[in-house]
């Protein structure tokens, strides 16, 4: 048969590779900076854009979407061409994809420090950027499927199954999570409220881990591991079983982030059992990876690429076993809201994602520059720095998490809490310090990689268009007696639809009843919408990223009820667009903060937290004292809330600012009694109003309704 000659596009891979390295370093630096702020808040230099609450989303978004995202795109575009024996579908689309994605990242890097955020973890980016992501993702999809359609290989290799599932599921997740009502060019409210928002959020958040950080990277493993080890894939049937089981089961597990919360019990239980069932499918990927190395372990000793991959896959195995264990309610009761979770995600992030990204860079760059790696020794040093860095990072965090949790739950025999919240934080400060050292080691390794790769490129010559040849695809051969799955592997569109159906099942079964069945969220008559000032204050709370350290969810535990007050009820959050339950307590829970402290306490505390709580690790929010509240946005916000079904009276948007000023004046007057002079239009007044409202609705008598206040 006549062979056709064609060229692989290496330039786009190179571009994504560069972006991976640059944003990887940026993301890690942001992480390190944030880590130091936790034990040394002053290092934020009291600059609003880089306080922990704004820096942490920057770190997570940079690592997930910029570092791992770009690494995945680089690896996918490299392997896809070679697995399909064709050039990418369209060079133009490739470049639109590349620049579009980088613009989104730059947009994120500008908006997040400015405090422009949706306030939902890993979905912080504002609505215009959300739309841009959707568009670029569609471009990527067209390019992906276009390439698959014009392939010269009859069957799709397992890596491509993972790419397809990634594309379709991320599209679904992103669209459902990003349904929001804009009230300005940069601001919007989540379409969902309270419990429903929480469920959608963690269905999304958990599966961002599953389908943005796991499935594409598994696909990369299936290509780069056998290539680097020159060994056949261990088991084809294991690939099939673990792939389908993984994508079907993964999507259900989101509610394990919400155990013991106000989420209905049945949804929590589904999260638990599907997490447990997920162990085997996850481990299927690990086994297929490690067993593929059978007979090649001598190479692992030599080849840095394989070294990185072995640790990456091992970390993947550890994290995917630990995850289900953390989903058991009795373990979760200890681990949730502590640094245990942070340790867990960094085993996945630093170990699995980071090391896989490094491995494919070390593999692709010498290949594309047609040379050998500049220094194996440096790469090995990078490997050891990284590995030690992971250990030094994770061990103190496990320790910190466990210790803090035990302190939270300690009672004196008299039945008093043994430790104040602050004591449980200052106690683990040394561990925070150790953690940042681990992170710094890991980052140092990454810098070594940059140097090594730079030297490699310098000594090689870049092949922009790599020549290859393959026979064209012959249509219609009789396939007799073949394994059933082979048929599917010839039909990419069927595979796409099947993946979509499978991932949709879990989401629909969990989300729809939570939205439609009334009994899931029992209403509480005394719960009223926020006043305009409180609403503005809430937006400041979201803007400053308070949810990165403070939860608003009191779980029904003896210690939490004692420490924070009555446990949180589903009906209390019906006007919370978005919900702010949080996932980590570096500071105490605020669900019932209202009325616990005086206005002046909050004022002083926000100005300098250590003046009220010596030893506090909270940053100062000096700018809130001077910046004037943007009251011009109030009517639009009220209108948006009304659209979402929040029962403000008709036409209230026009007079909302009158109520706002009235409430602000009363707070300013109250502060004045304690010798604090503040302009009533300062942002801090709005934030105090919000904090004083938190969790008070179900206490004592029903509050005045907005209508009555008129």
């Amino acid at each position, binding site marked *: 048969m006549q062979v056709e000659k064609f060229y692989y596009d290496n330039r786009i891979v190179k571009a994504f590779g560069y972006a991976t390295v640059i944003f990887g370093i940026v993301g890690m630096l942001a992480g390190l900076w944030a880590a130091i702020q936790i034990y040394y808040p002053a290092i934020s230099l009291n600059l609003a854009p880089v306080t922990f609450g704004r820096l942490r989303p920057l770190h997570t978004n940079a690592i997930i979407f910029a570092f791992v995202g770009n690494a995945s795109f680089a690896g996918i575009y490299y*392997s896809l061409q*070679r*697995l399909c*024996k064709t050039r990418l579908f369209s060079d133009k689309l490739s470049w639109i994809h590349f620049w579009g994605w980088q613009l989104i990242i730059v947009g994120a890097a500008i908006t997040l420090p400015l405090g422009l955020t949706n306030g939902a973890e890993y979905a912080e980016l504002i609505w215009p950027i959300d739309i841009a992501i959707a568009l670029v993702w569609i471009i990527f999809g067209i390019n992906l499927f276009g390439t698959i359609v014009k392939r010269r*290989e009859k*069957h799709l*290799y397992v890596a491509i199954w993972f790419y397809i599932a990634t594309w379709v599921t991320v599209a679904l997740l992103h669209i459902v999570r990003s349904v929001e009502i804009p009230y300005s060019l940069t601001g919007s409210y989540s379409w969902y409220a309270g419990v429903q928002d929480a469920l959608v959020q963690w269905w999304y958040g958990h599966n961002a881990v599953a389908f943005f950080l796991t499935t594409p990277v598994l696909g990369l493993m299936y*290509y780069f591991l*056998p*290539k680097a080890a020159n060994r*056949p*894939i261990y*088991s*084809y*049937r*294991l*690939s099939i079983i673990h792939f389908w*089981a993984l994508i079907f089961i993964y999507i259900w597990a989101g509610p394990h982030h919400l155990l*013991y919360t106000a989420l209905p*019990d*049945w949804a*929590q*239980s589904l999260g*638990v*059992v*599907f997490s*447990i*069932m997920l*162990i*085997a*499918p996850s*481990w*299927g990927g690990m*086994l297929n990876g490690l*067993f593929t190395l*059978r*007979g090649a372990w001598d190479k692992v000793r030599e080849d840095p690429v394989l070294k990185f991959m072995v640790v990456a896959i091992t970390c993947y195995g550890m994290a995917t076993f630990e995850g289900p264990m953390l989903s058991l309610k009795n373990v979760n009761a200890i681990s949730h809201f502590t640094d245990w979770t942070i340790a867990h995600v960094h085993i996945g992030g630093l170990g699995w994602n980071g090391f896989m990204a490094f491995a494919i860079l070390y593999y692709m760059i010498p290949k594309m520059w047609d040379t050998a790696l500049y220094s194996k020794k440096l790469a090995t040093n990078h490997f050891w720095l990284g590995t030690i860095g992971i250990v030094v990072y994770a061990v103190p965090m496990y320790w910190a998490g466990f210790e803090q949790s035990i302190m939270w739950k300690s*009672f004196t*025999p*008299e*039945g*008093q*809490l043994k430790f*104040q919240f*602050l004591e449980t934080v200052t106690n683990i400060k040394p561990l925070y310090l150790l953690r940042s050292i681990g992170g710094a080691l890991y980052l140092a390794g990454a810098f070594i990689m940059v140097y090594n790769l730079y030297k490699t490129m310098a000594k090689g010559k870049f092949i922009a268009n790599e020549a290859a040849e393959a026979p064209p695809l012959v249509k219609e051969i009789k396939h007799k007696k073949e394994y059933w799955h082979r048929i599917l592997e010839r039909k990419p569109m069927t595979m796409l639809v099947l993946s979509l159906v499978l991932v949709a099942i879990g989401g629909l079964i969990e989300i729809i009843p939570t939205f439609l069945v009334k009994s899931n969220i029992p209403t509480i008559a005394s719960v009223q919408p926020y006043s305009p000032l409180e609403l503005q204050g809430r937006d400041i709370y979201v803007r400053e990223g308070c949810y990165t350290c403070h939860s608003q969810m009191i*779980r*029904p*535990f*003896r210690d939490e*009820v004692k*420490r924070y007050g009555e446990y949180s009820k589903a009906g209390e959050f019906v006007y919370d667009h978005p919900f702010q339950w949080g996932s980590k307590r570096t500071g105490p829970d605020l669900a019932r903060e209202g009325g*616990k402290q*005086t206005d*002046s*306490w909050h004022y002083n505390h926000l100005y300098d937290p250590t003046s*009220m*709580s*010596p030893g506090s690790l909270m940053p100062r929010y000096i700018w809130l004292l001077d910046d004037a509240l943007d009251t011009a946005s109030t009517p639009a916000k009220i209108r948006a809330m009304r659209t979402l079904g929040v029962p403000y009276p008709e036409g209230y948007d026009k007079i909302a600012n009158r109520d706002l000023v009235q409430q602000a004046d009363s707070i300013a007057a109250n502060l004045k009694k*304690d*010798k604090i002079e503040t302009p009533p239009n300062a942002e801090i007044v709005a934030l105090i109003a919000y904090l004083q409202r938190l969790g008070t609705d179900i206490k004592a008598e029903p509050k005045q309704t907005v209508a009555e206040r008129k």
Partner: protein
Amino acid sequence: MLPLLCKRSKKIPGLLSVLVLLCFSQQAWAAGPPAPSVFNNPLAVTFIVLMVLLLIIIAILASLLLGAADLKLKKEKKKNPVIPATVVSMLFFLLLNSTSLFAQAGDAAAQTTSATIAGMSASAFYIMVTVIFLELLIIIALLINIRFLLKVEKEKNVVLIAETVEVTEAVKRTRLSWWDKFNKLRPISQEGDLDLGHDYDGIRELDNRLPPWWLYGFYVCIVFAFIYMWRFHVSHTAPSSLEEFETSIAKADLQIKEYLEMKGDNVDENTVTLLTDAADLDAGKAIFTNPANCVTCHGGDASGIVNDNPGIGPNLTDDYWLYGGAIKDLFKTIKYGTNKGMRSWKDDLSAKQIAQVASYIKSLHGTKPAKVKEPQGELYKEEATTPAADSLKTMNDSIKTKELLGKLGAAKAMN
């Protein structure tokens, strides 16, 4: 000595085996029944039965080994007498060595003093454990030797059939370790049979079976899922989050009640009395001056001055009180807080601690710090003597005093 041993072993292997056996049994017997009382202890009986069983196994293995060695010696004699001799001598050396260890253990045990472990004397316990351990060691040694002999035999056969050396190597390669069996791994040499013929950019795929533990583990997880859902949502035999919560609270309340009753620390705002003990006042001071507590609002000297500025809380050393200056009023204010800034401390401090800190504050009365906050509240005069016995009367009195002083204060304000 070696040749001697060899000679003897060649001549009388049967006798030797009996000897060895005897040697063991004697030692074991010596250790076995130490004291009659031991037979009442189930653990001791189990140990003894185990020791006897292991001894029987040793006897069988030993005779088997000696038989095999004998057979082998006869065969080897013709070709090369040296190798088997070393084999057998090594074997005996091992066995003898073991017996000597055995004897030592017995000696050591005789010296140990008596303390009881699991109902028998410590020495008896350790002797038995040592005996069992040594017996296990001997069994392992015997097995290794038997295996060695049999292997030599097997290789010999291979040579006899005139197979090549390569075959033995192939055998070696096809031998599966426990790890391979556990994972159902096929030898790499047979990989060709598993190749599916797929080729993706040079990547081939094998058709290995699923590791059994993985597959059954998956099934177990699925079964777990069904049982879990059944227990939590159908049969309700597992507690919901709120049921768990209620149980834990009930349990804790009971524990606290028992503890307080035992300790007699159950004062409240009606029964509290002024504490004057230095220890109590020191404890109260420690609570007061803890940076996270009172000093934040009332200042380190209770003057109401924090960092040279008026604090949130009032001066606690003067004669004026917002919520009453009696010890019971202070207790109540600290315990429940007020709606004007003072927070509730009942979740942070125990009743006794509140009494201590309230008493400490009372002890500060009239200390006149250098800089104080302006008086707040009403003038309060301490009553000369408070009849501690009748708390109700005291309360009424203090209310009356308050009313009186209130009127006075109002009059003063009008002036």
